[in-house]
């Protein structure tokens, strides 16, 4: 789909049950308007756009690209007296692409906690496919994150606007963004390798895996590669990753890595348990002076 300026794809952003987080995150994109200039924004909940919510609900709005934000319920969630699910269906059928923006729209997220039986993502319920999946799989792109990184969304929008194919994984996430883990690019990797733990939040030294509950080694996302505000990330400032891009988010006990007699209950992604335990048992035996020291002395 190569686009002429006169024939820009029509972008419709719809919300279901949401905290607005993905909308707000995207508003922080430094090149927001240049990105949107590749599209005709037919409706957006907070940005000025051609059509009102009333037009949207009546089904009068054209739509090539549908972005959905928020978690879903088949029945009982109304906007202006109309079931949100029925409004969504109308546009999802029309659209050439459907982007689920954020973990709620993708897997159910935080809202699912309130009613795990009824509330889900648009095409996935946690990792399971919803009945809707069959109808929309061919055009679905998942962008989980709580919230999504604005640059992840802009990457995708620009790929679509320029007619590029976006390679996806089995949960329909772009592999360019979700092919590696948050652990990739973390400045604490050397501490992880040698099993030196941070003893408190906010310090530069140590890894947050064992003692602070960091989910980086099993969370797919590019937070340490495409930095937040182009500057930093949770783990860089000394806060554990909560695994917000994963179908199981939010886990109970976000600041705790579940262990069995000190052994992590979940192994880093793709690493066999025996191999991991052999290696950690060995590296823990080393006392490396450099890793026990502060990186910077502030009190001098």
């Amino acid at each position: 789909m190569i686009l002429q300026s006169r024939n820009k794809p029509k972008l419709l952003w719809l919300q279901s049950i949401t905290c607005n987080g993905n909308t707000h995150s995207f508003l922080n994109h430094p090149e927001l308007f240049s990105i949107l200039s590749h599209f005709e924004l037919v409706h957006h909940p907070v940005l000025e756009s051609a059509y009102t919510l009333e037009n949207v609900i009546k089904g009068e709005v054209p739509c090539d690209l549908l972005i959905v934000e928020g978690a879903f319920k088949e029945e009982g969630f109304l906007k202006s007296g109309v079931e949100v699910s029925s409004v969504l269906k109308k546009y999802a059928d029309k659209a050439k692409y459907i982007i689920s923006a954020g973990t709620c729209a993708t897997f159910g997220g935080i809202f699912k906690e309130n009613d795990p039986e009824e509330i889900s993502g648009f095409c996935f319920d946690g990792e399971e496919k919803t009945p809707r999946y069959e109808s929309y799989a061919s055009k679905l792109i998942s962008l989980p994150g709580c919230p999504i990184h604005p640059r992840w969304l802009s990457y995708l929008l620009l790929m679509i606007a320029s007619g590029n194919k976006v390679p996806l994984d089995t949960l329909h996430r772009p592999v360019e963004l979700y092919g590696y883990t948050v652990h990739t690019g973390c400045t604490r990797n050397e501490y992880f390798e040698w099993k030196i733990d941070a003893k408190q939040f906010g310090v530069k030294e140590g890894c947050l895996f064992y003692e602070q509950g960091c989910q980086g080694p099993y969370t797919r996302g590019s937070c340490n590669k495409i930095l937040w505000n182009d500057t930093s990330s949770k783990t860089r400032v000394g806060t554990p990753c909560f695994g917000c891009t994963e179908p199981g988010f939010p886990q109970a006990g976000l600041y705790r890595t579940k262990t069995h007699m000190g052994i992590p209950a979940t192994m880093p992604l793709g690493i066999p348990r025996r191999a991991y335990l052999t290696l950690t048992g060995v590296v823990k035996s080393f006392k490396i002076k450099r890793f026990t020291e502060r990186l910077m002395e502030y009190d001098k």
Partner: protein
Amino acid sequence: MKIAEKKALKRESIIQTALQLFSANGFHKTTIPDIAAKLHMSVGNLYNYFSSKDILAQEIIKYTSEVLGEEIRKINMQDISAREKIRGIVTVYFTMAQEKPEMIEYFLRVYLSNREVFSDGCEGMVCVSGFITEIMIFFDDAVASGELRNQDFFSAFGLFMGYLGGMVFLKGEGVLPKEIEYYIDDISRNIYNALKA
């Protein structure tokens, strides 16, 4: 037989022989010429396989740890309860103390008592990881299934291995009134009761 295979066999026979001599006579009293003589090989040739007595000693602890680890691994792979696995591990350990006493002796009397030999190259768990890893896997599974109580690794490990080591030590000193198998049931039950959820 290929040369590499021959060398591997020779290497293993050196380990076996040295293991017996070290366990029986102690690390310091056993010399490289003693080991070479028992193997009918020249001292120079033995040094082709192991460049020093310390390195040979370290290879032996790795070897015994792998052998014991392999036995526990077989137990870990079985679809049985943690209670039965404890019994399995106790049995493996005591059987080894009966059939290959030099292995356990080596651990108790050479490895644990000559720390300076193992300080450089065998720090902490480096040389015993074959065995420790399997114990970790056993604990991990048993806590995940809810059978054993979640606690610090070393408090559980110390209880388990300290008890087994202690019994084999008593046997070695000749003070156990009965054969060591006699104690398997009670010891397994005691360990299980101490660690269960």
